[in-house]
């Protein structure tokens, strides 16, 4: 579904609505908007916050700002990461970088990373390819962390999950992918749980297309 000129116009008019719009005491805290726009919180909490933005031009603007800040930092990260060279276990700014790892066909050849560096601004990074027989997800993040991973199919049914991974990689068991039609999309997300609420690291949601 492509946004046409009429939709672009509606989008600009929605932006115009925020001009001089003030928030009210019932508005959610900025942290909640940031978390929801980044795909954190529960689905129902996210829906509740989106519902609020539909009636509140000020919070709609704050939501756009969250998306824009994350996008700008991702771009800055991309520039920095590209300077260091791809495949380095660098840390992405807002999100933990997650890449689909394509294993080397032979031991003499270095692994190829399909990095997320070319990704757009959205909070979901689209369409990396992986083989259903050898679907290895690999990401990067600060050292010494334990990662939780969740993989869902396009109907948001659980395909695989793991807790406390000490290595930034996970092989999705082939039998969990066996029933999925060719071309199916998976959604993957990595989280580093924290000792205190609101202080965790979370990746973007990535889509991986299974061959």
């Amino acid at each position, binding site marked *: *579904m492509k946004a046409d000129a009429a*939709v672009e116009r*509606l*989008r*600009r*008019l*929605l*932006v*115009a*609505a*925020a*001009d*001089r*719009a*003030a*928030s009210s005491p019932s508005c959610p*805290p*900025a*942290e909640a908007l*940031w978390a929801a726009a980044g795909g954190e919180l529960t*689905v129902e909490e*996210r*829906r509740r916050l*989106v*519902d609020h933005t*539909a*009636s509140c*031009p*000020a919070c*709609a*603007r*704050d*939501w*756009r*700002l969250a998306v*824009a*800040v994350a996008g*700008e*930092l991702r771009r*800055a*990260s991309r520039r*920095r990461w590209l300077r260091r060279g791809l495949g380095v276990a660098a840390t992405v*700014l*807002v999100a933990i970088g997650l890449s689909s790892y394509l294993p080397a066909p032979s031991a003499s050849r270095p692994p190829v990373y399909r990095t997320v560096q070319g990704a757009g601004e*959205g*909070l*979901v990074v689209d369409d990396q390819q992986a083989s259903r027989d050898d679907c290895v997800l690999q990401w990067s*993040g*600060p050292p010494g962390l334990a990662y939780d991973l969740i993989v869902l199919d*396009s109907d*948001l049914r659980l395909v695989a999950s793991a807790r406390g991974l000490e290595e930034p990689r996970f092989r999705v068991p082939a039998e969990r992918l066996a029933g999925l039609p060719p071309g199916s999309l998976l*959604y993957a997300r990595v989280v*580093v749980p*924290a000792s205190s609420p*609101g*202080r*965790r690291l*979370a990746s973007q*949601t990535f*889509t991986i297309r299974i061959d």
Partner: protein
Amino acid sequence: MSGSRQRLSERDVETLRRALVRAVARVCPAELADRRDDLVQASLLRLADRWRPAGGEGKDGLSSFYLVKVAYSTLIDELRCLRRRREVPLEDGSAAMSLPASEPLPDATAQGHEIGRAIHLCLGELGRPRRLAVMLYLQGHSVRQAAALLGWTYKRTENLVYRGLANLRDCLSARGLSP
């Protein structure tokens, strides 16, 4: 991940400052043109005790999700303080109803502002699933992103966006607006 141990290098701060300025410029271009740097500066000042005075990379740097969230939150707080002084309530005012539909509707004008607010009012008349899907779509999210955020399938979300946009246009037309 404790906040007190996190540090930003000067380069991190500069990266963050630029990102915030660009984001504000994109999201609030007209209204805040003269206040943009002040707002960002004020939000960064609240992170001042976490700056690392010398050059080089901070231990956690901008990889710290927490610090970026703090920067965003303080920026929003500053914005909210600024707006509170010149509040405009969102209500179904007659101004939007009386706009001539035949004339071009400039976005960054009082007319654009009023139509934008009419969009919010019309969104309130949609069923909740359509409202949520259309809202995210109009916020610039793709259907796939909206589906992931709302926990629905792509197909369902696409359908909700399509039908919701049609409802929205009908509602605006009924108000004499055809953006």
